């Protein structure tokens, strides 16, 4: 017997190894042939605080977290169990059991660590009554005791996995393999003992009548489990990026770390510097000297980058910046996702500035659009920004390994060789006309690099003449400005002609109701649309990735083809809807917004409900956590 989908939630204190345990378990599920999707919820502190990871696994494609979940492994928190620890960490009470019950589906399974979660706790929340009411199957197990007996207390995660596998009637093979990959010696021995003991105890001592079993599936090709941050880092590597500068800030740190760890083996350079102004300025300096360079940050750090971003625009120095959003304003909620920095990223920096902004919506898009970001930046000598969020950054999904089997593209775009420079235009003084507007193609005048013969020029953040000297000549100003702005039109054209797939559509093509979204909300919207169509509605979806230049034609076609549209995004001020209205100058009365900004990403059911409320024209909000912002006239 197997079930349609398993959504396993492991909950406890952060710093307890919940992350690595769930990562391995997700991989084991993937290796058993299932599609998986992980969702991480954690507080902004190093140890303690309530945290959970959800793994959704099914025999079909999963694009989002599920609605609720069906298996809870509630571990106790490991800290503050002696006065010294308490003095250090505080003794905030962690309730891995009670905190998690609201989302547990009917018929779900609960395993909790009796060794740490006492009878009083269980009585306090009246677990028995609630279990009966919801038909939950509850298994108290002394995981701590079991772990202690064979090894160390922290290994109770392993005991939990063993119990899970037994209850779901899963093989232990994949789990064992992964354990042997990750550790060795005594540690491995103890863990394996604990795993088996836990498994056997359940198998021998319990009769169970729950319906949930691990789904069965198979993959035709090899799969890899990775996060959006992995995909961005790997896209950068394959685009020939070999220079990164940064300053840590959650969640951008993930990309920064992955590249820093890989670059030494690839002849790349990684720099952790004094602040984000420096970080982006380093990317500019390295690119100026001939490296494919990137930097990035999250909201607050990106704010500091607005200066060097403008410098890159004015000097036409290609760079790629990553903006990994978290909830704001200011320091906001460091570990919670939000799509609240869109306007900031589009318009930050002074003057009529322009840049290219991509907002990938899933792991594959994150990889593809990162490659594209480098290509566009180096071809057009313009900064490109990849905007994504804590959700896409941290969630892990399986992707076909072959998807990544592509040639690297270390090409420096519109950079000249010395031979080409010899043929290029020079002015009377012998200087290279780096910023020539006479024969610029698509707004681009090819560049030289310091150290090249015959390419001498001055780059300056001031308005400048063709050779790069500061100039306030009105004619020159207009020529240069127009040339720089002209690039955007050609980039738009190129994106439409060659990379139309940047925008994703799904659902029923003929539907007269559309749901529009951007970035990481894509998965939940796609699932919601699928479900709505399954429920007899006719709905279609559009997920937009190109934020600047804006895909006018595609969005216009979509909006014209529907009577009504709902724009789904994770922020409170409907920033993406605002962008559509600004760019297209109409459709304000066609679009309603569904907004969520409580720090948790959308679940598909919330979008389904939002649609229904909206469709029926009800005068109510769908839930306490999700808000509808009605349509506005043009």
């Amino acid at each position: 017997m197997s079930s349609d989908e398993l959504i396993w939630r492991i909950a406890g204190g952060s710093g307890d190894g919940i992350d690595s345990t769930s990562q391995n378990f997700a991989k084991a599920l993937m290796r058993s042939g299932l599609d998986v999707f992980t969702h991480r919820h954690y507080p902004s502190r190093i140890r303690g605080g309530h945290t959970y990871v959800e793994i959704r696994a099914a025999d079909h494609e999963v694009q989002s977290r599920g609605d609720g979940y069906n298996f809870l492994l509630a571990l106790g928190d490991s800290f503050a169990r002696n006065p010294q620890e308490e003095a250090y960490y505080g003794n905030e009470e962690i309730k891995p059991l009670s905190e998690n019950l609201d989302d547990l589906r009917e018929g779900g399974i609960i395993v909790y660590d009796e060794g740490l979660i006492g009878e009083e706790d269980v009585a306090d929340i009246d677990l028995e009554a609630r279990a009966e009411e919801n038909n939950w199957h509850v298994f108290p197990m002394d995981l701590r005791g079991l772990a202690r007996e064979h090894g160390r207390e922290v290994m109770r995660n392993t005991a939990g996995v063993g119990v899970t596998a037994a209850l779901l009637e899963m093989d232990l093979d994949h789990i064992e393999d992964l354990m042997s990959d990750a550790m060795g010696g005594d540690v491995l021995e103890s863990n394996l003992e604990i795993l088996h003991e836990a498994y056997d105890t359940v198998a021998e001592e319990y009769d169970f009548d729950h319906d949930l079993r691990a789904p069965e599936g198979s993959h035709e090709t090899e799969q890899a489990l990775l996060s959006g941050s992995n995909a961005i880092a790997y896209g950068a590597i394959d685009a020939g990026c070999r220079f990164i500068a940064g300053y840590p800030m959650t969640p951008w740190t993930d990309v920064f770390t992955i590249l820093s760890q890989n670059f030494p083996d690839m002849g790349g350079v990684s720099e952790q510097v004094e602040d984000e102004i420096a970080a982006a300025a380093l990317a500019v300096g390295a690119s100026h000297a001939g490296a494919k360079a990137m930097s990035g940050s999250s909201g607050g750090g990106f704010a500091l980058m607005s200066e060097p971003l403008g410098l890159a625009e004015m000097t036409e120095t290609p760079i790629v910046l990553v903006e990994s959003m978290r909830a704001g304003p200011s320091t906001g909620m460091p570990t919670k996702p939000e799509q609240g920095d869109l306007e900031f990223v589009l318009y930050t920096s002074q003057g009529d500035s322009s840049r290219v902004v991509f907002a990938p919506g899933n792991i594959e898009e994150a990889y593809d659009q990162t490659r594209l970001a480098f290509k566009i930046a180096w071809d057009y000598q313009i900064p490109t920004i990849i905007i994504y969020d804590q959700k896409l950054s941290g969630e892990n999904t399986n992707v076909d390994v072959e998807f990544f089997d592509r040639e690297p593209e270390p090409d420096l775009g519109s950079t000249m060789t010395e031979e080409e420079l010899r043929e290029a235009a020079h002015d009377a003084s012998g200087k290279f006309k780096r910023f020539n507007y006479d024969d610029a193609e698509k707004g681009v005048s090819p560049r030289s690099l310091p150290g090249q013969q015959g390419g001498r020029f001055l780059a300056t953040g001031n308005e400048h003449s063709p050779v790069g000297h500061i100039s306030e000549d009105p004619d020159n100003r207009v020529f240069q400005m127009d040339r720089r702005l002209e690039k955007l039109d050609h980039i738009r054209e190129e994106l439409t002609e060659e990379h139309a797939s940047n925008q994703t559509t799904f659902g029923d093509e003929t539907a007269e109701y559309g749901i529009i979204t951007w970035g990481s909300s894509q998965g939940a919207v796609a699932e919601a649309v699928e479900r709505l169509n399954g429920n007899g509605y006719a709905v279609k979806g559009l997920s937009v990735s190109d934020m600047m230049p804006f895909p006018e034609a595609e969005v216009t076609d979509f909006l014209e083809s529907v009577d009504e549209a709902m724009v789904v995004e994770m922020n409170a001020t409907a920033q993406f809807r605002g962008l559509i209205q600004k760019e297209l100058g109409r459709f304000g009365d066609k679009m309603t917004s569904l907004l969520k900004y409580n720090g948790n990403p959308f679940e598909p059911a919330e979008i389904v409900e939002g649609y229904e409320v909206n469709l029926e024209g009800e005068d109510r909000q769908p839930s306490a956590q999700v808000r509808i912002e009605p349509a506005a006239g043009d």
Partner: protein
Amino acid sequence: MSAFNAIGEEREIDRDEFTPGIEPQPTWCPGCGDFGVLKALKQALPEVGKTPEEVLTVTGIGCSGKLNSYLDTYGFHTIHGRSLPVARAAKLANTDLEVIAAGGDGDGYGIGGNHFIHSARENHDMTYIVFNNEIFGLTKGQTSPTSPKGHKSKTQPSGSAKTPLRPLSLSLNAGASYIARTAAVNPNQAKEIIKEAIEHDGFAHIDFLTQCPTWNKDARQYVPYIDVQESDDYDFDVTDRREAAEMMHETEDVLNEGTVLTGRYYVDDDRPSYQQEKAAVGEMPDEPLAERYFDDDAEWERSYDLLERHT
């Protein structure tokens, strides 16, 4: 074949090569100390065998920031206070370039102070020239971090309540491995110091006293100056941190009393540059990173090779 043939080119170099053709002519005020820096650089560069095209000058904003508009090398005129991070990265990306950063005291010790401290700390192999005129020039005479206490300006009309920053001591404490002070009025010394700084492997900081006759009228014109290496009154070991520190303190004290001491203050030839330190821990490529993009035989690792850990 290198993609950067101008680098390491050996030939007789005329200092006029560093002067741009017809335009632009310096827009500095008559008598401005900035002319002295420009002149000293133009003399020093050919003498150390540098061609204009292998040199990258990176400047900040201010009158001083216009240095590379009048000096014909590869140049990057950046934004206020940010010359150092741009310059550092250019050097990391192409270690064969001769990188010289320059800017004013407001630019380098004020808005860019954080970058100054960390560039010195890391001992990047580059030269950093600070045009120290004890004033904001370009924005018309406001008090700068090195303006004397009590200095009156339109933004501090009752006289500055702030003690001036001590650039030499700061630089030493931050970690620069070559530190000197020179003055525009002393062209021969300035040229020699710039040559040494360029040849030094590490962060070479030159606090370059430049007079601003327009906004700092009653301020020192830095004459007469005393060369601490030439004078019998000052005997200290430039390679000794403590002795150098002592000497810097004295120099910074007496400047406020009107005595101008110049010369080399600290030279540490033993300390590896940042690039060398980074190479030693295996985080710096053997060849200049920038070269690799032009190398047809370069092997580019792919992310595909990294996927094993994810399967």
